[in-house]
């Protein structure tokens, strides 16, 4: 169970750390004026500062007991969380697998896992659909559009 307060705080921390990353990264490019004019880091630096300050404000508002939105006790129930994870986790693994296994293998595995593991489809049908997806991607992109999708480290090791 996740409360609205926890969500508010987590979002504020997330946006705040993004802001800090922007500030730190833009310092490398230099902020302020140089002989060439405004340095490249100035604009990102300012946006980063705005993000950090705004996130701090949101964080404080989330902590304060007076905040009305934060008093909503339950924003996400465990069942909803499980459903969300059911979509998000396989998708994240799929994306992470693309550089390693390549687009075709990764998408075939993804389709197979999503269809066969929750038993939406029988294993042979899921296998057939996975193969069809990979084949369709190959024909459409590699053959028709002549766009090379990522082949992955595995394919490179096998000599494709």
């Amino acid at each position, binding site marked *: 169970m996740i409360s609205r307060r926890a969500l508010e705080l987590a979002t504020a921390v997330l*946006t705040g750390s*993004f*802001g800090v*990353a*922007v500030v730190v*990264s*833009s310092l*490398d*490019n230099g902020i302020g004026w140089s002989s*060439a*004019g*405004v*340095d*490249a*880091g100035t*604009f*990102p630096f300012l*946006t*980063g500062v*705005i*993000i950090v300050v*705004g*996130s701090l*404000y*949101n964080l404080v*508002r989330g902590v304060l007991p007076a905040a009305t939105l934060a008093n909503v006790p339950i924003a*996400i129930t465990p069942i*909803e969380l499980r*459903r*969300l994870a*059911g*979509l*998000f986790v396989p998708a994240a693994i799929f994306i992470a697998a693309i550089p390693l296994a390549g687009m075709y293998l990764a998408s075939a595995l993804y389709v197979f896992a999503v269809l066969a593991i929750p038993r939406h489809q029988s294993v042979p049908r899921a296998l057939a659909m996975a193969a069809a997806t990979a084949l369709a991607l190959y024909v459409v992109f590699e053959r028709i559009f002549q766009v090379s999708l990522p082949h992955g480290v595995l394919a490179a090791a096998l000599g494709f």
Partner: protein
Amino acid sequence: MDNLGELLHGFTIALTMPHLLLMAVGVLLGILVGVLPGLGAPNGVSLLLPLTFGMQPVSAIILLSSMYWGALFGGSVTSILFNIPGEPSSVATTFDGYPMARDGRPTTALATAFGSAAFGALIGVILITFLASWVAQVALAFGPPEYFAVYFLAFASFVGMGGAAPIKTVVALAIGFAIAAIGIDTVSGSVRLTMGIDELVKGVNFVVAVMGLFGIGELLVAVEEELHARAVSSRIDWGEVFRAVVRLPRHGVALLRSAAIGCWMGITPGGPTAASFMSYGIARRFSRRGRYFGTGGGRRHHLA
């Protein structure tokens, strides 16, 4: 009055059978391209440019401009039915169009979007005809400070008139700026905010950001509420189309106001995206039913 004569002469050329057919083809192709996320009106026009190589110049321009309009309308179709804007200028359409479609009024939302867009286009054409030479001078006088002012106005109106907590809107805007700043700086040419990742040198593609924010976000919400197909079915009931168009004049003031904003923002090179957000913000502010905005009471249109 010279301009008017020229315009009427233009109509006599445009309103011939082959040209009308070309317009129909162009608009249909345009809608097809506009519906695809990421292929906005300019991309669509450049994609279909080869089609026009064998044509007369006049026919080619007619085809391309019909395409452009078709693509603009096509962008609103996905905004309303799927909550995924096909291109930047139809982002504002998702705010009301999608809730309306979800309430079972997709036809009304589509007809209103198209009707008001047609109205805006008409006003724009009339205005441009009479003011073309004057307008050109104003547009040429636009420099960096004016660009900044126009965009600042658009963003400020967004913060002031958005429904969410203003500070959250500011943070979201600043995150957007920071993401847009990733890659090669157009002024100095130095690479910034890439954290050493080569793929980020080219920056973050607008389409990628929109698909993630609107598309994936919408999917996750749908899964959370265990609704399967959230894409609203859209059987078109012609009676409803007619009723929506008839109802348009009732929003006359909003239409005229939005047309004025659209023309102004179209003359000033702020572009259609800023114009559509501005119209939305202003309509929201002036509407007595303001608090229903974003839940499906609205109307807007695009113009550039």
